């Protein structure tokens, strides 16, 4: 009886030990993976792309009734405000029409000046845009990103800027066949070249995992004032110039923050197929030669 009890006790200890060893091994593996992914996330990109594409369709289907209910609720609320909204929108429309005329006149003037000076300043923000839907949102505590229901098949590429109705939300960091992952501006890994719209003062906007990213690498802190409008500067060669981001909030002399343009719950977003500026070395790699011709056909393909 005593021997049986002892054997039972030993078995129990052994089994517990094995379970603990399994858990500890996985904990060590997880911590190692965290360090690896923190230093080089690109290693996991192919696996992530596959999994995101596979799960994206499923998440999209699950999301359908939820989003349907949300929009139904929204529509119901909107119905009560139709009259006041209509009145406000009419006024706004009249104002925007004025802006449209002025914008056309200014564009004609700019084209004229460019042709006189023989320069090509280029209008950075592409006119085309890809409308996609947010299917899932990763909201911290370490990462802030969203998954969209379109990828390579929709023409999305890494680096493309993503906007909601009133401002930039981030840029594409991974593209699968049918899904793409967007890094939000507030994520710790986000770095965007920005400037003040009115003065052209430049800085880098650094995500801090909160709602107000920080400005860094600027010349003089006194040049930044509360309420100044911040847009992308285009200096990084990745994002076009002039995309609205938010407004300056100066907390102290050394801590200048940007309050991002408020957004509703993300649903539909626009991806701008902006062609980033490639360095000369990179364009060299894309030079293709036609075999049939003896002449070098420098057909530069930028992708």
């Amino acid at each position, binding site marked *: 009886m005593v021997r049986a009890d002892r054997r039972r006790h030993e078995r129990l200890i052994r*089994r517990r030990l094995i379970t603990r060893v399994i858990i500890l091994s*996985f904990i060590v593996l*997880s911590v190692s993976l965290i360090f690896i992914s*923190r230093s080089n996330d690109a290693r996991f990109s192919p696996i992530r792309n596959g999994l995101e594409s596979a799960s994206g369709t499923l998440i999209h289907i699950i999301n359908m009734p939820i989003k349907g209910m949300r929009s139904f609720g929204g529509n119901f609320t909107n119905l009560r405000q139709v009259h006041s909204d209509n009145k406000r929108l009419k006024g706004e429309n009249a104002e925007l029409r004025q802006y449209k005329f002025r914008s056309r006149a200014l564009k004609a003037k700019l084209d004229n000046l460019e042709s006189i000076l023989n320069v090509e300043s280029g209008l950075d923000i592409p006119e085309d845009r890809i409308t996609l839907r947010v299917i899932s949102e990763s909201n911290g505590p370490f990462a802030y990103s969203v*998954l969209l229901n379109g990828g390579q098949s929709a023409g999305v590429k890494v680096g493309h800027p993503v906007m909601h109705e009133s401002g930039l939300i981030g840029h594409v960091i991974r593209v699968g066949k049918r899904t793409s992952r967007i890094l939000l501006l507030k994520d710790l890994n986000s770095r965007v070249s920005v400037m003040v719209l009115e003065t052209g003062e430049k800085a880098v906007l650094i995500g801090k995992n909160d709602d107000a990213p920080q400005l860094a690498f600027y010349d003089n802190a006194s040049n930044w004032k509360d309420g100044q409008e911040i847009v992308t500067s285009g200096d990084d060669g990745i994002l076009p110039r002039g995309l609205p981001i938010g407004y300056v909030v100066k907390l102290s002399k050394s801590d200048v923050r940007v309050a991002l343009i408020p957004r509703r719950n993300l649903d539909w977003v626009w991806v701008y197929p902006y062609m980033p500026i490639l360095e000369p070395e990179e364009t060299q790699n894309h030079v293709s030669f036609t075999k049939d011709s003896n002449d070098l056909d420098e057909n530069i393909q930028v992708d």
Partner: protein
Amino acid sequence: MNTNLLLNRHPEALQISLQGMLFTLVMIVFSGLTFKLGHHIMAFTWLPMTAIFLWPRWSHPYLTPVLIGFLGLLADLIMGHLVGMSSLVYLIFFWLIKPTERENRLGFWRAWLEFSFSIIFVLLITTFLLGRIIDIDVNWMDLWRQIFVAICVFPAIYTLLAVFRRWLIDPDDVNYQ
């Protein structure tokens, strides 16, 4: 603690473990959903932890932590987190609550209370330590909101499981010793 669970393996332990895995997998897919409450975005990020808390008692003792580790990695890859973060949190949570070693099924109030305390404890400690080790600023308010959502959703998940229990493998009905 139920020593029988450790000493005598259930003949259907493998299927029971896979049942727990499937349920957690569903929760992982749902964890990508968000909604807006006032000016704040509320996320279901830690929803899979409800599934881990309610993991079937008669699961395979060795296979279960392996499954949970892999499910955590899968959640990280799907949700775009740092790879390894969710698996670490899930495993520490699993180690703390030991769902496969419970003597009896937990009653609702006790389960809710135990879940609330353990999720707060595990997430705060792990996030704090991880933030320190890998030098990342943590948005504590977002974390608290996510914990709040998980705690609020727990009763619904518990009830759902209770309703569907009759269609699942219910080891409590099995005359097993």
